[in-house]
C-alpha cells in the first residue's frame, strides 16, 4: 500500500497524542512518560536531521548539544534551589526554575558552542566530519565527568521539576503537553526552513557544493547556519529531557547517545520532516517491549536495526510512501 506522505505525517502526530490520551483515561501514567520520552528524543533528532538530512553532514557528536541543554537546566536549577549565584567571573547570574528561561539559556549556549565548533570543523567532510564531531563530544563528556562542582559522573539531581507559568509540570500529561507543543512548533519551523531559499540552497549544497558556489553562495556559511540551528534545537531537547528525568549526568554527552539519535533518524527516514518522530516512537516502543521479553533484548534490537538498513531503504516513511530517502 502506498500512502501519501502528508497523511503519514498527520497519522504519526495523531498517534503521538492518542496514546497518552488513552493512558490518561485508563490511568497508566507511565505510558505518558514513555510518550514524553519519545517526543523529546524526536525533538533532538529533528535538530540533528537539519544538518544530517538536509545538509548531508553526519554529526556523530550531537549528544554534545543534548548534554549542554541538560546541564544548562541542571546548573540553573541547582543555583536556584540552593540560593547561590552562578559566578562566571565577570558577572553573577541568579539561577532559575522557570522553563522558558532555561530553554532560552539552553538554546543560546548550544548555539554558541555550535557556532564555535562549526567554524572549526566544517572545513572537513565525510568521515572526518563524523570523527571530529565525535571528538568534541568526547571532550565535553570527560570534562563533565571530572567537574565535581556539578556532581561529576554522579550527575546532578533536581528534586522538583521546573515550572512553566500556568501549568503543573509534575502532572505527567501536562509535561507531555509542553513537550508535544514544542515539538510541533519546531516541526513547523523545520518545514518552513526546508521550503525557504536557505533550505533549498542547503539541500543543493549537499548534492553539489560546486554548483552552489557557482551561483555565488558560500556552502560553508550555509552549513554553519544549519549547524547552529541544529545545535540549538538539540540543546532545547536536552533541557526538556533533563526535566523529564529531573536529573542530568555526563551520560547525556556519551557517544552511544549520538549514535542513538542517528539511529532514530534512519529508522524513520533520512531528511524526512517526520522521520525522527516515527523513529523515536518505534525506538522507545522497541526498548520497552523487547526489554520485557528477555534479558538479552539488545540482540533483537540489533537484528531489527540490521533489517531496517538492509531491506528498508528510506526508513519507515520510505516503506509507507514508496519513496527513497535523501542520500547522504
Amino acid at each position, binding site marked *: 500500500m502506498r500512502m501519501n506522505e502528508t497523511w503519514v505525517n498527520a497519522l504519526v502526530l495523531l498517534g503521538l497524542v492518542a496514546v497518552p490520551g488513552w493512558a490518561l483515561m485508563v490511568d497508566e501514567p507511565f505510558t505518558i512518560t514513555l510518550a514524553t520520552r519519545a517526543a523529546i528524543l524526536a525533538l533532538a533528532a529533528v535538530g540533528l536531521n537539519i544538518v544530517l538530512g538536509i545538509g548531508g553532514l*553526519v554529526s556523530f557528536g550531537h549528544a554534545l548539544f543534548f548534554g549542554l541543554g541538560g546541564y544548562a537546566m541542571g546548573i540553573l536549577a541547582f543555583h536556584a534551589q540552593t540560593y547561590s549565584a552562578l559566578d562566571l567571573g565577570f558577572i553573577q547570574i541568579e539561577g532559575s526554575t522557570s522553563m522558558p528561561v532555561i530553554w532560552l539559556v539552553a538554546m543560546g549556549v548550544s548555539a554558541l558552542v555550535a557556532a564555535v565548533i562549526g567554524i572549526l570543523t566544517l572545513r572537513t567532510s565525510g568521515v572526518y566530519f563524523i*570523527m571530529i564531531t565525535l571528538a568534541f563530544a568526547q571532550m565535553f563528556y570527560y570534562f563533565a565527568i571530572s567537574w565535581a562542582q556539578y556532581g561529576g559522573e554522579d550527575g546532578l539531581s533536581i528534586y522538583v521539576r521546573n515550572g512553566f507559568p500556568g501549568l503543573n509540570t509534575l502532572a505527567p500529561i501536562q509535561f507531555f503537553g509542553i513537550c508535544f507543543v514544542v515539538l510541533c512548533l519546531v516541526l513547523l519551523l523545520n518545514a518552513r526552513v526546508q521550503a525557504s531559499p536557505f533550505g533549498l540552497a542547503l539541500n543543493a549544497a549537499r548534492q553539489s557544493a560546486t554548483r552552489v558556489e557557482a551561483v555565488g553562495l558560500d556552502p560553508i556559511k550555509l552549513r554553519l547556519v544549519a549547524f547552529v540551528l541544529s545545535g540549538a534545537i538539540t540543546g532545547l531537547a536536552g533541557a526538556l529531557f533533563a526535566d523529564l528525568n529531573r536529573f542530568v549526568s555526563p551520560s547525556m554527552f556519551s557517544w552511544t547517545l549520538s549514535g542513538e539519535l542517528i539511529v532514530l533518524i534512519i529508522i524513520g527516514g533520512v531528511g524526512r520532516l517526520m522521520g525522527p518522530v516515527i523513529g523515536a516512537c518505534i525506538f522507545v516502543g522497541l526498548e520497552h517491549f523487547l526489554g520485557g521479553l528477555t534479558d538479552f533484548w539488545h540482540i533483537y534490537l540489533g537484528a531489527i536495526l540490521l533489517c531496517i538498513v538492509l531491506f528498508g531503504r528510506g526508513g519507515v516513511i520510505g516503506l509507507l510512501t514508496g519513496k527513497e530517502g535523501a542520500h547522504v
Partner: protein
Amino acid sequence: MSLILIIEQILNGLQFGVMLFLMAAGLTLIFGVMGLINLAHGSLYMVGAFAAAAVAGLTGSFLLGLIAALAAAALAGALIEMVVIRRLYRAAHLDQVLATFALILIFSEGTRWVFGSFPLFLDIPAALSGPVTLPGGIEYPLYRLALIGIGLGVGLGLWLLIERTRIGIQIRAGENDREMIAALGVDISRLYTVVFALGAALAGLAGALVGAIQSVQVGMGEPVLILAFVVIVIGGIGSIRGAFIGALLVGLTDTLGGVFLPELFKLFMDGGAAQKSGSALASMGIYLLMGAVLIWRPTGLFGARA
C-alpha cells in the same frame, strides 16, 4: 622526576601506541579498500579476547589461545562481511554506521549470552612474565616489551604484504580504482572478504594480547574502538603509515599527558586540585590533539581523500 621514570613512561606510551596500531591498521585498511566505516571493529577485538581466554583456559596454552583468537576473529570478520557488510559497499556512510552499530549490539549481548556476565581469565604465559632489567637500570615488564616487538613485527609484515605481494598490489589497486581492478579480472568480492578477515584478525590479535594484561569482559572493545578511530583520523583514513604514526602519537599523548599534566599543574596550584584538573585535562588530551590536527589538516596527516 627522574630520567629513568621518563624513559619508562615513554616505553609505556610506545607500547600503548603499538597496540592501538593493531586495531587501527585493520580499521584503516578496511576503510581504504572498501570505503567502509566499521563500528563493529571493537567487537572483533572482543571476540579475539574471549576466544583466547576460552581456549587458553581449556588447553592451558597461551599460544593456542592466540591462534584461536586469530582464527575466531578472522572467521567472524569473514562471516559478517559475507552476510551483512557486502550489501553496504554502495550504501551511504550513514547506513554503514547504523548497520555496524547494530552488529555491536548483537555481538556484545551474544557474547554475554554465551560466556555469562562475569569477566574471563586470561594470563600472560609464564615465559613472558615478570620484569627484565634494561640498560640504564630500568625495570620493565617483559610482556610489554614483547608486545612492542610483536606490534612492530606485525607492522613490518603488513608493510611487506602490501608492498611486495600480489594481494598487496590488488589491495593498493582497490584503494585507487575499484572499477579498474574489477576490469582486470580480479575477483573483487573475494578480495574484500580477505581484506576484511585480515583486518578482523589483527583486531582479534590485539584483543587477545591486551586481554592477557586487562580484563576480558563484554564491552571491552568500544573504548578501544573510539581510540582507534581517533588514531586513523589523525593519521589520515586509509593510510597504514598514517595509522602507525597516529597510533604512536595517541599512545604517547595519552600516557605522558596523564603523568606530566598533573605535575605541570602543581607548579601553580595546590596538590589535590592540580591532580584533579591535570587528570581532567589529560583525559581530554587525545581529543584535543585530534581536533588540532584536523583543523590544521582536514584530511589528517597522511590522508588523501575524505
